[in-house]
């Protein structure tokens, strides 16, 4: 097995790690950096529970090798809250009841963040489309979709107050 030293930014913090060639980004986050918020639901890129932002784009971290992340900037669920304050989408998920067992929640949050960055005011069809790769077995999705709408409003309000 070959090992590689890579440097990357995870949730704003610079990390140098040594990873074997076959280690996925998901395993590196969970096992090497102990960022266990990113979940392993299928290891096959199908359930979305391990979604993280890589250079601003949502990806299934189980489908990317850690070595591919040399020089990358990553955002995981642990990086959403700032200085102890929940991000609007996190607060919205609590407020609108979009959390049940919570296992899909980190992936849902990251996909929603990617959507809201791309489109701060998505309509329902756009929200459904953006989250179609995040399987949830508990909620029936209704409250997750509602959460994204609430977060969009919160973000708009935030932008208004800081403007």
């Amino acid at each position, binding site marked *: 097995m070959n090992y590689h030293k890579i440097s990357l930014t995870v949730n704003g913090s610079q990390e140098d790690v040594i990873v074997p060639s076959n280690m996925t980004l998901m395993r590196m986050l969970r096992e090497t950096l*102990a960022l266990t918020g990113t*979940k392993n639901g299928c290891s096959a890129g199908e359930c979305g529970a391990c979604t993280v932002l890589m250079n601003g784009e949502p990806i299934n971290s189980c489908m990317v090798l850690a070595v591919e992340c040399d020089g990358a900037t990553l955002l995981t*669920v642990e990086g959403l809250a700032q200085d102890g304050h929940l991000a609007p989408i996190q607060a919205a998920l609590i407020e609108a009841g979009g959390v*049940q*067992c*919570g296992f899909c929640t980190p992936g849902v949050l990251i996909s929603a963040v990617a959507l809201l960055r791309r489109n701060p005011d998505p309509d329902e069809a756009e929200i459904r489309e953006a*989250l179609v790769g995040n*399987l949830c077995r*508990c*909620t029936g999705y209704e409250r997750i979709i509602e959460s994204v709408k609430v977060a969009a409003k919160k973000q708009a309000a935030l932008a208004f107050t800081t403007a």
Partner: protein
Amino acid sequence: MAKGNSEHTHPIGESTKRVDAPDKVTGAALYADDIQFGNALLHARVKRSPHPHALIKRINIEKARALPGVKAVVTGEDFPGHIGLYLQDRYIFCRDRVRYVGDPVAGVAATRVEIAEAALDLIEVEYEVLPPVLDPEFGASPTAPIIHPELGQYVVANFIMPVAGTNISNHFKIRKGNMTEAWGQCAAIIERKYRIPHIQHVPLEPHVAIAKVDASGEVTLWDSSQSPFAQRDLIAQTLGINQSSMRVVAPVVGGGFGGKAGVSMESLAVAIATKVRGHPVKLLLTREEEFYTAFVRQGLISYFKIGCDASGKILAMENTFYWDGGAYTEYGVNITRAAGYSCTGPYEVPNVKTDSYCVYTNHPVGGPMRGFGMPEMHAGLEQCIDDLAYQIRMDPVELRRRNCLTEHSILATGGKMHPTGLAECLEKAAQAIGWGKVAPPSSPNKRRGKGLALMWKAPAMPPNAGSSAWIELSEDGMITLGIGCQDIGQGAFTVAAQMAAAAFGVPFESVRLATPVDTRYSPYEWQTVASRITWSTGNAIINAANDARTQVLELVANAWEENIDDLDIIDGSVVSFKTEKEISLKKLVVYGLPKPDGSGWLGGPIIGRGSFMPTYVTGLDPETGQGEQAVVHFTTGAQAIELEVDLDSGKIEILKGVAAFDVGKAINPEMVKAQMEGGLVQGISSALFEQLQLKGGVVQNASFVDYRIATTADAPLKMQSIIVEVPQADGPWGARGIGEHSMVPTVPAIANAIYDAIGIRFDGPPFTAEKVYLAMLDAGIVKE
């Protein structure tokens, strides 16, 4: 019950936010796979049978054992005991015979997962392949190969009736009234056969168990679990461990739906760990393994014969259920029983004959899944009710109106129905879906339809399933609530905190939960199954709160020289209605209060305890299924669906789903609605997409690509949840469970809506686009 009545101290019926949500949205919540065990951790993998049915002739593990990095290899020889919840029919690792594809034959623990997997390839197993049983109806016949020749010797619970010398692991019967006479009085009779496929639970979190046996033999198991106490009991018994030397720690659970109840893969991890003392051993199922080795929802072949008179009064029902129980029957035998005593659905039927058989097959192990037999059984029954109505030219809602259970209705088991809001659920669901109003389809190549179904379900459990709770008071006036139930996503912890706050008399924010559940420190709970936690654990919490309250009030009454009846706890303070004195709990619950004459102190640390067990449940006659009170109670409800069938593709789009359930009392209304929504979509998913495709006993679709569950694109465009509240006499604030019920009537409601749209009935779900299109082609509705 608590007298506290201010808004803060009585958060019953308030939609408080989930207590576990902040941890879950920040990634801080620790699921079993997230716990770090350091370098001592070993990884386990399991060698599984490739055959559905075979004798094991020889196993050679020497090469696997010699592989560097391998720390242990175990086989059935190492563990001779049987395990099973109601019927002890399994070895932990197979000893003489394999009974399904995936049956564990050997286990390996190694320093890395890759090494453990490589070791599996080095284990040689020689089989003598036997003919498999792949159909439950055939399996119940005298010509079928016998899968468990030892059935007559197995240890079995006294309410389960296996038939030795056959593949029937339970035969439940109802014999009530006079069938011959009843059929003669019928104006219309419907006879139908339905098939319900195996489906999987698909919690997003796969099964994981980490077991460690320390030098002195003390065992700890960390796992994703709905049943930590049952696991402690069953695994300890089977492996000859003292029960109190076995500890199960159950962290946050990433979904269960029944799949993480009882004992499945957890015993494998513990068994392997006994051979590598001191090392934590982790067994994490791959998603592929999840699909074919976790409990599947049992398949069902059901026959219904139902008759009514000209006025629509149902007179007779004859049902035969063949449950595809799979290779072993952890819960399957009791699902068969539950479907038997619930066989009439929520209707009063004077004449009933039912045979419900649990049948061993060489399919994956059948287990409980959200609804415990009720979605499977209602799927056929509620379509028959529609067809019966059509046959006597009556509106299906009207037929249901005339037959649905009300208080004092006589049940199939002979007992009487308690007060129920079923009729109200029916009316509200029908109204919300616009029953009787025809809306045009959204385009000319679509047909639109509406369907409705009723349901009932009791918590299916042994008559002595108990709950307990404790409440400890802290110096700062907070209370800590100890419970042994699990929050598998349904919100049990939040509701428990609401009930403790209300029953004791402190603000909701003053309640802390002693979690995760740990059998060493948490109070006993039978299992988090059967939608019984709000009701059963809730009663234990009330009892614990009352015990603690009484201690506090007695203390203050003595110190103030007042009567206890004049005191109450409101918003975290003890108040006197008589003298208007007030004292905060902060000051008294640990250190006590000075005696009135100053001669010393009263009181001391306060802990309240409470337990609950429904002691009033009676047995049923094994020949007739008759008895006074078969179950604790039934939750009832209705769902209605509006959908469109695309004539070009056969695709079904759910436009609107309505759910109305009588929950007795909604402790947290928004979370009750969230359960209704989640169950509805899980039901839609099972109706439109889900089927474990088995070919010769081999699962063909063990991935999310081939086994599809509903996504955001499949959830209904509109959902409406309606709460009906007819209180349960022995429920906390009148509450009944709702977790499973919300999935029960969905499949027949959809099937009835499809029939309304295109006039076609199917013999079973899933109603895939392909199946629907081909049926429309056959019926001449569309042309090639």
